[in-house]
C-alpha cells in the first residue's frame, strides 16, 4: 500500500476558482488558481452573480490542470475536500457541486472544509502546526482570533464587530482613487509615508479580543472629504501610513492581549490581509516579547484564497474522521464555534 494520501481540493468561496492536489496534507503537487480580479475590477468590487458564472466557466479546466500538473490519476486519490462556507452562496455552490460529482464518480470520501480553517492551514506549508495555537485571521470578509486547543478544533475568541479589516482597506482605497483590490497598493504607499493623522484605535482599552474598523473608516473618509471642501491637498502617503498604522495597532494590540491570556506554542497569521507587510513586520517585533511562541506566517503566495490550503485542512479533517454525504450544501454563513464562555 502506498503511504501517500492525495487529496483533490476545491475552493470557490469568492472570486477565485481553485483546485489543488495535496500530498499528506503538507506538500503541494499542484495548486491551480483562476482569479477573476480583472472581471470584478470593472465593478469596483466582487459581484456575486458574475463570480458564480466565472466559476462555472473555469471549474473543469482547473480540475484538469490540477491533476495534470500533479501527475495524478483519480485512482491515486484518497479523498476530495471542498470549501462549503463561509462565502458567497452561489460561488460556493459551484465548488460543492463539482466536488460532489468527482467524489461520487470515483467513490471517494468527501471532506467538508471551513474556508477559515483553510486559511489557517496555509501556514502548514511553512511548518507543522503545534497545539495549542492561536491564529489571527485577517481577510476581506473576516477578522478574528481563533484558539486551536488541539488538532481540528477551532474556537473563536474574538472577531470584528463591523467591517473586516480587508473591507476597510478596499473602501479606503476607493477614497484614495485606487483600483480594486487596493490592499497591496495601500501597504506599499504606507511604507513611504508617516502616521501624521492619528486616526482612532477602536476598542483598544476594552477587555476582550474583538475589533472594530468602521470608526476608522469613517474618520478616514471625513478627513479626506473635509480637506476636499477646503481645497486642501493631503499627502496620500501619510493618509495610507496613518490608516495602516491604526489597523496594525488594533490587530497587534488584541493579538498580544490574547497571547497573554492563552499560553500557546504558536501564533499563526493567515488570511488575505496576512500578506500585508506592515502587519507582518509588526508581529515580528511584538513576538520578541513572547520567546516561547513561534510566529507562523502563511506564505505570501498562499495568503489569498486557494485550494492548497483547503487540501491541507482537509487532510487533518480526514485524519479525524470528518466526512460529508452527497447532500452536502453550501453554508454561506458558516462559523467556527466560540471559545466556551466567550460568546459574542
Amino acid at each position: 500500500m502506498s503511504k501517500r494520501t492525495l487529496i483533490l481540493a476545491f475552493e470557490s468561496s469568492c472570486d477565485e476558482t481553485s483546485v489543488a492536489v495535496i500530498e499528506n496534507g503538507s506538500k503541494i503537487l499542484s495548486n491551480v488558481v483562476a482569479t477573476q480580479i480583472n472581471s470584478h475590477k470593472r465593478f469596483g468590487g466582487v459581484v456575486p452573480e458574475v463570480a458564480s458564472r466565472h466559476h462555472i466557466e473555469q471549474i473543469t479546466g482547473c480540475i484538469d490542470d490540477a491533476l495534470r500538473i500533479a501527475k495524478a490519476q483519480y485512482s491515486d486519490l484518497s479523498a476530495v475536500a471542498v470549501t462549503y462556507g463561509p462565502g458567497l452562496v452561489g460561488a460556493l455552490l459551484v465548488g460543492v457541486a463539482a466536488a460532489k460529482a468527482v467524489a461520487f464518480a470515483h467513490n471517494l470520501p468527501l471532506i467538508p472544509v471551513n474556508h477559515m480553517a483553510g486559511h489557517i492551514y496555509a501556514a502548514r506549508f511553512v511548518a507543522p502546526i503545534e497545539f495549542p495555537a492561536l491564529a489571527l485571521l485577517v481577510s476581506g470578509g473576516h477578522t478574528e482570533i481563533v484558539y486551536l486547543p488541539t488538532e481540528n478544533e477551532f474556537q473563536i475568541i474574538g472577531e470584528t464587530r463591523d467591517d473586516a479589516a480587508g473591507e476597510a482597506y478596499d473602501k479606503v482605497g476607493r477614497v484614495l482613487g485606487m483600483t480594486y483590490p487596493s490592499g497591496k497598493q495601500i501597504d506599499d504607499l504606507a511604507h513611504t509615508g508617516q502616521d501624521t493623522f492619528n486616526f482612532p484605535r477602536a476598542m483598544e482599552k476594552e477587555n476582550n479580543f474583538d475589533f472594530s474598523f468602521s470608526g476608522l473608516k469613517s474618520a478616514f473618509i471625513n478627513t479626506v472629504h473635509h480637506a476636499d471642501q477646503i481645497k486642501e491637498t493631503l499627502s496620500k502617503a501619510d493618509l495610507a501610513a496613518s490608516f495602516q498604522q491604526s489597523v496594525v495597532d488594533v490587530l497587534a494590540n488584541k493579538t498580544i492581549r490574547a497571547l497573554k491570556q492563552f499560553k500557546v506554542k504558536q501564533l499563526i497569521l493567515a488570511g488575505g490581509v496576512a500578506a500585508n507587510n506592515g502587519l507582518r513586520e509588526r508581529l515580528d517585533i511584538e513576538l520578541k516579547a513572547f520567546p516561547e511562541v513561534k510566529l507562523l506566517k502563511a506564505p505570501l503566495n498562499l495568503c489569498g484564497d486557494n485550494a492548497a490550503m483547503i487540501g491541507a485542512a482537509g487532510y487533518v479533517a480526514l485524519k479525524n474522521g470528518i466526512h460529508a454525504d452527497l447532500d452536502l450544501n453550501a453554508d454561506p454563513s458558516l462559523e467556527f464555534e466560540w471559545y466556551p464562555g466567550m460568546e459574542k
Partner: protein
Amino acid sequence: MKLLAIDTSNQPLSVAVAEDNKLLAEVTTCVTKNHSVTLMPTIKEVLKAAQLEIKDIDRVVVAQGPGSYTGLRIGVTTAKTLAFTIQKELVGVSSLAILANAYPQTDALLVPLFDARRENVFAAVYKWQKDELQVILEEQHLSIQELCQKLAKRRERIIFIGIDSNKFSKIFQVELTMKKYSIAPEQFAYPSGFVLTQLGRQMKPVQISDFVPRYLRLTQAETQWLQNNPEGKKYDESYVKKI
C-alpha cells in the same frame, strides 16, 4: 447509448437514465427548491434503480437554461463535472424545449415559459410541423406583455406550458382578448428527464470545459457597466486569469 439526464433549471427536479429510446429510471420531484442538497443523492438513486454505475453512462444531458440562476448553476456544474470526470459526452438542451417536446402534436403554437420576475418571462414559441417541433420564436427574456403582443399577431391557437403560466392568467385575459388560448394541464407542466434524454440523444456533444448555462440575460452589474463603457466587451478572456 446510455444517457443520464438532469434538469434543475427551475423548482422541479428531474433525473432520468435511459438506454437509447428506452427509459430505465426516472425521478421527478417538486417538493423542494434546494437542488444543492437533493441532486446528487437523486442521481445516485436513479442510477441504482437503473442498475447502472455512473461509469456505464455514455452521455450526460442537462437542461442548460433558461431558468433560475441557482438551479442552473447546480445542474450545469454537476453535469459538466460528471461528464468531464468520467470522460464521457455532454449535451445541453433548452429547458423550454423540454416542456414543448413533451406536449402531444397539435396545430396550436406551444409557448413554454418561466417566470423571470417583475412581469418578465423566459419563453420560446414552437410549432409541430411534419412530426418535428419547429422554433417559431427563439428562447428569450422578455416582458409578458411583449410576448403576448407577438402572439396576438399569429393566427394559430396558443397553448402556454409550465407551472408559472397560471401566474399570468390575468395578463393573458387582458392582452389576448381576441385570441384563443389555453394553459396546458398540470401533467405537461413539469419537465421530464426522459424527454431530456431523448432530445439529448439527437444532439452533438459539446466541448465540456467551455460549457455554461444559457442565462439569456446579463447580470445587472454587467448591463450597467456596458452602458457606461460602450467599448467594453461582454466577455473577454482577460477577465479570468490562471496565476
